[in-house]
């Protein structure tokens, strides 16, 4: 039985897509950034609230080392990015968690830091996980230079020349963040401190603000070094190039468990996106302005896809497929075609016999041209309350829920070694999350509980043997080991998009799909996988610069394209 019918479709006559379709790893791994992604939401809010960015401290030497502070005044509060740039030996430069030193380090400070605060942070921020922080710090982060490109830009600007456009297009950032910590890590403020802060109250908004400020710092730093190197010949980066320089990010397995350990949040993210799609598909007829906008965005998308070239063979093949499919779709979908009834539903249908990349790109496009219709849903994606354990539920009801929502798991043969091939674990080495082969490596007995499907199958077996008249409290007295599975199953009954509906232990599981899913909700683009469990991405590419954030068109940077010189 499908649980599709249980999902409220708000006021839309179009039902939301079924969780059994949406929550598969393969589809999650094809998600694109949308206008509901957190970076987009943040920039819209900064724009709405007329945020002002200033740089009260710039104590950076001629070689680019020292400290700086950027302050954002918004919504009656001041938030300050405290940035440190330090020397780093090449043999220490790694983007992995196991790193112990970085080119730059950062803290987002709640308010305006005093000199004493700066000194305290200077002693701790460059040490990252080895440092200690206070609740006045909201986010902790670090970034490494994209070494060859950073030096190229310095050299070109110092010579009075602009950076090579091909490199700007193919690399797209001067630095890569390698971790962005929030919510109480290493002593920084718990998320509850931000719960009444309006603009920063929602999912990852403080982290996204930090990354936007880091991007601005990377621009300033490269120009500063170039200016100091050759003040007579120096030129700043052209705005169109600077706007295209986002901030890179290197992401590994640490991001994947988050989606499993925060089911209510995952549900709200996906449900918001699906509700938005349903609203758009329910539009019976569209106005000419929206149709023109859609056609424009389809052209932009085609150019964006052309500029997305990477080394990873699997992803590059998918990009080539979606390029071809997009051209096919674009050949059909013109102003006349969209002027007929139910244009967006028909466009979604048109994509259904194409790749998942193409289907999800269409979803993102449909949302992009309907801001007024969908933007309010971003608020519902921002917070979540995990479901409580209902110990009064009859055992028979719990078993029904297993069958309804976890049929995908009940059918898996976990005695087949290929279905338990992987185990997720935390290494004692700087607590780096890793993935092992259960049958070749030690440590499987310490695996993290990401085996939700296996847990539910085990519980369903015991539920089937239990007296139907029992309630969950009585069942757990006999089977206390199933407490975790009870919560998961009860949760998904209310939050249908809260569970990834695939076996995360299976040989076919590709963690990169989970990374892309989460990163798409951040708003990342240009996914550049380096393996099946590690990817580089670009954040804030095309986004407004500090002095553009209050401009009228500050929200128009979905799927950025590097424009040619006019």
């Amino acid at each position, binding site marked *: 039985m499908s649980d599709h019918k249980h999902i409220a479709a708000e006021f839309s006559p179009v039902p939301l897509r079924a969780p059994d379709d949406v929550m598969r790893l393969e589809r999650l791994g094809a998600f694109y950034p949308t206008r509901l992604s957190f970076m987009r939401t943040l920039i819209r809010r900064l724009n709405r609230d007329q945020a002002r960015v200033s740089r009260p401290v710039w104590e950076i030497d001629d070689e680019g080392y020292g400290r700086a502070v950027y302050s954002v005044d918004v919504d009656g509060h001041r938030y300050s990015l405290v940035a440190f740039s330090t020397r780093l030996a*090449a*043999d220490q*430069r*790694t*983007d*992995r968690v*196991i790193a112990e030193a970085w080119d730059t380090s950062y803290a987002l400070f709640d308010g305006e830091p005093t000199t004493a605060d700066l000194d305290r942070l200077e002693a701790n921020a460059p040490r990252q996980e080895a440092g200690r922080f206070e*609740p006045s710090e909201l986010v902790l982060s670090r970034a*490494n230079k994209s*070494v*060859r490109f950073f030096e190229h830009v310095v050299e070109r600007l110092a010579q009075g020349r602009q950076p090579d456009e091909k490199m700007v297009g193919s690399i797209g950032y001067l630095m*890569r963040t390698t971790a962005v910590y929030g919510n*109480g*890590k290493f*002593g*920084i*403020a*718990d998320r509850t*401190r931000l719960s009444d802060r309006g603009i920063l109250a929602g999912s990852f908004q403080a982290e996204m603000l930090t990354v936007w400020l880091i991007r601005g710092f990377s621009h300033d730093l490269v120009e500063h070094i170039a200016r100091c190197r050759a003040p007579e010949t120096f030129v700043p980066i052209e705005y169109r190039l600077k706007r295209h320089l986002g901030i890179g990010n*290197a992401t*590994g397995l640490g991001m994947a468990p988050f989606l499993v350990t925060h089911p209510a949040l995952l549900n709200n993210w996906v449900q918001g996106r699906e509700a938005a799609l349903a609203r758009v598909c329910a539009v019976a007829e569209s106005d000419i302005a929206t149709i023109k906008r859609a056609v424009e965005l389809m052209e932009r998308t085609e150019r964006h896809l052309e500029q997305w070239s990477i080394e990873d063979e699997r992803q590059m093949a998918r990009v080539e497929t979606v390029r071809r499919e997009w051209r096919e779709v674009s050949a059909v979908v013109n102003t006349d075609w969209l002027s007929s009834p139910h244009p967006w539903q028909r466009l979604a249908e048109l994509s259904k016999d194409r790749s998942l990349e193409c289907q999800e790109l269409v979803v993102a496009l449909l949302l992009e041209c309907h801001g007024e219709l969908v933007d309010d849903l971003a608020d519902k994606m921002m917070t979540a309350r995990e479901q*409580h*354990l*209902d*110990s*009064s539920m009859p055992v028979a009801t719990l078993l029904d829920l297993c069958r309804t929502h976890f049929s995908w798991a009940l059918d898996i043969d976990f005695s087949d070694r290929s279905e338990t091939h992987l185990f997720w*674990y*935390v*290494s*004692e*080495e700087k*607590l*780096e999350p*890793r*993935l*092992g082969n259960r049958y070749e*490596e030690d*440590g499987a007995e*310490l695996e993290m*509980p990401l085996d939700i499907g296996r847990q539910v199958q085990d519980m369903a077996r015991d539920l089937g043997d239990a007296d139907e008249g029992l*309630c*969950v*409290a*009585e069942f*757990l*007295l*006999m089977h*206390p*080991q*199933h*407490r*975790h*599975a*009870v*919560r998961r199953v009860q949760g998904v009954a209310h939050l249908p998009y809260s569970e990834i509906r695939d076996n995360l232990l299976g040989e076919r599981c590709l*963690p990169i799909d989970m990374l892309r899913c989460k990163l798409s909700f951040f708003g990342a683009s240009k996914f550049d996988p*380096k393996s*099946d*469990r*590690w990817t580089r991405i670009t954040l804030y590419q095309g986004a407004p610069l500090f002095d553009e954030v209050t401009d009228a068109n500050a929200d128009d940077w979905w799927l950025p394209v590097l424009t040619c010189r006019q």
Partner: protein
Amino acid sequence: MSTVVRSLNEVYTMLRKAAIGAGCSHGIAEELGRAGVWLCTAGQNGVGAVLSATQAANVRLNAPTIDGDGAVFHHGCAATAGPAAMDLLLSKTDIRRVRIEDVDVPLLVAGLAGIRAAESNRAVLVEVDGAAKSLAACDFERLKHATAITFVLGTGQLSSGADTGVSAAEVDAAAWSDCEKLAARTYVPATEQSRVRGAGANITDND
């Protein structure tokens, strides 16, 4: 006593991992972590309570004796009997009161009651030496030394004692260190193979 300040998220994460390291199931460990945080926000030694309770984490849970509208857990281990007692009390069955006798860490059971009451928005009263009080008005000093503790389902809504405005907890440094040792049991020893293959990424990134 030497103390350290830890964020509430650090407290939750550490207690959950310590409980797993001590042998608790993941479901129980989550509950203990939440209970520890609840106690910290109520100004109590949540870290110490969870740490103490994990010493009996592997004690088998015995079924309670049911007598009318009451359930009694004998020889109560807070880490296992505590969650089970709250399950029963909030199960909408005929059970209106649960008692844990010979309880090893009564403070932790109060934390478990506090978090479950908050989650379900149900009023839970705690009874020590015959006097029933809301969790908010509970005499924690008296409760800590109780040998038996009874919880009664109230008629109203939530009566939680936790202060949601608390932003960090001051915890005993030695207890925290003990938790770290337990948590370390959940980490897989590093090997060259896991270093190279486990994360699927480069060791250096000088491009």
